[in-house]
């Protein structure tokens, strides 16, 4: 069980840095076409900021801020954005992920429509990568007692 760190220096410095790390992760996602970066790399940095919150403030406080239910919503939303853009292209009589057909909807020319749709897809990828990383880390670092409680709970639901 990752306990709350009793040191005030580490907690304060982590609290100062976490918003700036997240801001930098958004910068990396947005500038994927121009500098090293993109969806996956930005998602990893965004996940690293939440892992920093977990190791400095402990399991209980981190779960109060971002519960497991919220994280599982996030990775569904990421996949929904990606597949949703693909299906939207099918509605406009194109192939799957054929971004050129969205030009009328966004009211720009075809090259700009492709660029904006790739940005949208990268945002979806970033959200999913962040959510999966944080969810795996929560699951690995859970104490054994609450894992046993969850197994009993799942078993009792399936036996009904």
């Amino acid at each position, binding site marked *: 069980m*990752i306990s709350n*760190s009793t040191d005030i220096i*580490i907690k304060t410095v*982590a609290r100062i840095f976490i918003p700036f*790390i997240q801001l*930098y992760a958004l910068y*990396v996602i947005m500038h994927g076409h121009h*500098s*090293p*970066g993109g969806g996956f*790399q930005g998602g990893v*940095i965004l996940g*690293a900021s939440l*892992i*920093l919150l977990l*190791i*400095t403030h402990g399991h209980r406080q981190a779960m109060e801020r971002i519960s497991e239910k919220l994280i599982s919503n996030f990775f569904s939303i990421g996949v929904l954005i990606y597949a949703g853009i693909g299906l939207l292209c099918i509605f406009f009589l194109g192939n799957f992920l054929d971004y050129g057909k969205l030009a009328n909807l966004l009211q720009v020319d075809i090259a700009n429509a492709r660029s904006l749709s790739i940005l949208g897809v990268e945002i979806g990828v970033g959200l999913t990568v962040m959510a999966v990383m944080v969810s795996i880390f929560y699951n690995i670092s859970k104490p054994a007692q609450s894992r046993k409680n969850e197994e009993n709970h799942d078993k009792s639901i399936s036996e009904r």
Partner: protein
Amino acid sequence: MVNFLYGIGFGLCFLVLFVLYRGIFGPGVFNRIAAISAIGTKTLVLLLIMGFIYNRAEMFIDISIVYALLNFVGTLAAAKYLEMEK
């Protein structure tokens, strides 16, 4: 100026070899963690110097910010794990 940057780069590489001695032979695990953190710091400066030599400074600055972040988070995580050992 480029030759001067080459000289600083070679000096830093030489220092990394010396710190690696403490990383291999350090008695105990804490000496090794301190050595790895020091190597990470020198690597950060080396990346920036390489960026200026190849005249593509903007790309290497983004990479070195990410490396500084990951070095920090990694050292904190390793220290947190080792304090729960006893």
